[in-house]
């Protein structure tokens, strides 16, 4: 890696970790319902929302009521997002007169946005009216993220409470996430993005007259729209759904290196800070730092692989008389599918963070990455979106793996596993295992079905092993609610819209329900004071064990499939 690569990555990680404590402490105050300083001005708005919806925010819920509210709220969202797309041609804010979205695409997109995946089979600027972008998609960017945070907070209460039958109130957790965390951060970020050249307007396409008429284009049409407001929350809420087809590679969506830094920071900002919130709410901040440390170490490892592979370039092109050596005058390396202003370092940094988080926005085309660069992104998906992961969902996924790690350690020394003063019994282990097994099941079965059917193979774009990688990546992305793609795969057709829709649905809710069940079970338990035989879960030993468990679970599950895709492609290219 070049010296500048170390500096850019070092700066990124430093800012990310420095933000964790202030933001994390603030979020803990939000959910403990304590005074929020200047943000208290939003209290009347919060009360108004409860009053019109007939909600009593003080009414505590057991885990079943909590899960029920979450599911009903998601169902309402699914119907609303579907209907809005199907009817956009007769609704306002459609200056370019786009027609209704097809039934299978609408089905896929509504699941995609409600599950915080934001997989996009469609091209934004050619498909979605401004109303659909705002009132259907942007809304889900907020509330699906808020629901993820709410479920995490419920699980944290499960650890923190003793002999309790309830885990909080879904409505108030969700409303507070939206009002006090996501909305203020989004407004600030959106305005700063506009200052960098990200568009924000309700005007339709603009037609310009290009400078060089001899290039054969009398006019150039530029798609515009209210992009900045959507992009801010797409990053902060780890949604990732782009306003334009190429997402944050589009200059109107990500105009400068500074807008890029702020967006890529926003991808992990809240997920990282929630680790501190967790530590604060369970009364031991060291527990949160330990998990954040494990996440950061894994991320940096993958980052180095990605930057190194992309900077090394593509040997197939070097033979053709091109200069791809990094220098002061060019980024060099594998520039296919990458933007000049971002070069290699920022494209690889983005690819690693967007797949570590369940964000899925891109600023470069992952399909054109080198085999090992693409492998880094794909394996980060397959870790289960627990390295930072989605806002809320990442940490609750990681806590399932923490429970597995504690269990393994318990097996080694022959003691009942306990974590944060809670003894873990067979029911808890079952819920944790369920939460971990659902994802590989839907990813691997989905991939197998797709590559064994004509419909699944018909829209593969790249030949050979890389084509298999496209399909594996698609199901890994959907099965982890990520949303990024090896985008050569033609996914806007009834087969992939349906298959990936079902996978995204299972990946979100089949994990969320065991997590809430676990929260309910933990809350009921008494607190066991630590004894001499208790495994400390905040030291280097435990962090190492946790990293091992995260990597091992994914490796055992996915290495055979990866061997057929990126690993085979890498070895073939070496010949």
């Amino acid at each position, binding site marked *: 890696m070049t010296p500048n690569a170390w500096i850019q990555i070092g700066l990124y990680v430093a800012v990310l970790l420095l933000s964790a404590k202030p933001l994390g402490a603030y979020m803990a105050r939000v959910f403990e319902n304590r005074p929020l300083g200047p943000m208290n001005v939003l209290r009347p708005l919060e009360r108004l929302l409860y009053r019109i919806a007939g909600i009593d925010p003080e009414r505590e819920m057991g885990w079943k009521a909590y899960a029920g509210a979450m599911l009903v709220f998601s169902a309402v969202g699914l119907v609303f997002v579907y209907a809005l797309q199907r009817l956009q041609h007769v609704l306002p804010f459609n200056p370019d007169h786009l027609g209704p979205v097809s039934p299978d695409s609408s089905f896929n997109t509504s699941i995609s946005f409600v599950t915080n995946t934001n997989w996009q089979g469609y091209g934004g600027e050619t498909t979605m009216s401004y109303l659909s972008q705002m009132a259907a998609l942007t809304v889900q960017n907020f509330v699906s993220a808020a629901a993820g945070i709410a479920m995490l907070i419920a699980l944290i209460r499960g650890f923190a409470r003793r002999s309790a039958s309830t885990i909080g109130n879904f409505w108030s957790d969700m409303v507070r996430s939206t009002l006090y965390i996501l909305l203020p951060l989004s407004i600030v970020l959106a305005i700063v993005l506009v200052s960098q050249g990200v568009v924000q307007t309700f005007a339709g396409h603009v037609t310009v007259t290009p400078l060089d008429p001899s290039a054969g284009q009398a006019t150039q049409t530029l*798609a515009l729209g209210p992009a900045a407001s959507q992009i801010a929350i797409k990053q902060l809420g780890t949604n990732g759904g782009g306003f334009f*087809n190429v997402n944050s590679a589009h200059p109107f969506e990500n105009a400068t290196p500074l807008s890029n830094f702020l967006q890529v920071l926003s991808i992990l900002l809240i997920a990282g800070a929630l680790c501190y919130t967790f530590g604060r709410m369970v009364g031991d901040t060291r527990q949160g730092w330990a998990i954040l440390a494990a996440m950061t170490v894994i991320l940096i490892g993958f980052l180095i692989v990605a930057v190194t592979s992309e900077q090394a370039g593509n040997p197939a092109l070097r033979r053709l008389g091109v200069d791809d050596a990094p220098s002061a005058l060019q980024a060099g390396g594998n520039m296919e599918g990458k933007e000049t202003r971002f070069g290699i370092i920022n494209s690889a940094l983005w690819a690693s963070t967007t797949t570590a988080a369940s964000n899925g926005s891109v600023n470069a085309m992952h399909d054109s990455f080198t085999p090992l660069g693409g492998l880094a992104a794909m394996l980060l998906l397959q870790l289960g979106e627990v390295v930072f992961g989605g806002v809320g969902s990442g940490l609750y996924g990681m806590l399932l793996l923490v429970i597995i790690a504690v269990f393994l350690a318990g097996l080694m020394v022959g003691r009942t596993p306990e974590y944060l003063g809670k003894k873990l019994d067979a029911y808890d282990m079952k819920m944790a295992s369920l939460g971990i097994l659902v994802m590989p099941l839907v990813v691997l079965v989905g991939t197998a079905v797709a590559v064994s059917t004509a419909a699944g193979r018909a829209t593969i774009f790249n030949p050979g092993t890389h084509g298999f990688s496209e399909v594996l990546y698609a199901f890994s992305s959907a099965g982890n609610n990520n949303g990024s793609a090896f985008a050569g795969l033609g996914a806007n057709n009834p087969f992939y819209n349906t298959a990936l829709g079902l996978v995204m649905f299972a990946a979100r809710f089949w994990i969320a329900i065991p997590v809430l069940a676990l929260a309910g079970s933990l809350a009921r338990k008494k607190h066991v004071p630590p004894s001499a035989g208790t495994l400390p879960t905040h030291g280097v030993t435990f962090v190492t064990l946790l990293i091992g468990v995260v990597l091992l679970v994914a490796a055992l599950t996915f290495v055979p499939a990866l061997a057929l895709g990126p690993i085979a492609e890498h070895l073939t290219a070496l010949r």
Partner: protein
Amino acid sequence: MVWRNAIVLYAALTVLTGIVYPLVVTGIADVVFPHEAKGSLITSSRKVIGSEQIGQQFSDPRYFWGRPSATSPAYDGAASSGSNLGPNHPDLAKAVQERVAALRAADPWNAAAVPIDLVTASGSGLDPDVSPAGALYQAGRVARARGITEKTVRALIVRSTEGRTFGILGEPHVNVLKLNLALDLIQHPRPAEE
């Protein structure tokens, strides 16, 4: 009851985050950054000739050329797209070979290796920039086609290069459209209409 809670709350949050929020951001952006919010458009003799953020197709040898674009037609600002060609797709090597040959044919005196960004498609298909290396590679051709010295052209490239932000972020880049406009300006303003 839970259904009523959910439907009403959903509707209320739709108004707040789906309507009020984008309108507030648009309102502030309109006042504070109107130029950027509307697409950073460049106007020349009362004609809108492009956007600072979006690349254009150039083929006249007197102009600098941008990166290959995977959209169809090239630099289609209404439908962005990358090539999505994998690193070992045979079409990628073929396309790069043809682009190298085309650049060499346009500038037979230039024996230097071709900077990678000039022969690989950008992520968006709308990349407004080339690397400084990519611009310097074309300096000789542009100078000859315009009948000015290569030194003048190189100096202009250096002036037009945007370095890393704060010396750290991103990569040095040269905006092709702005560079070409600057070229037209230093010569007797000669629009390329023939």
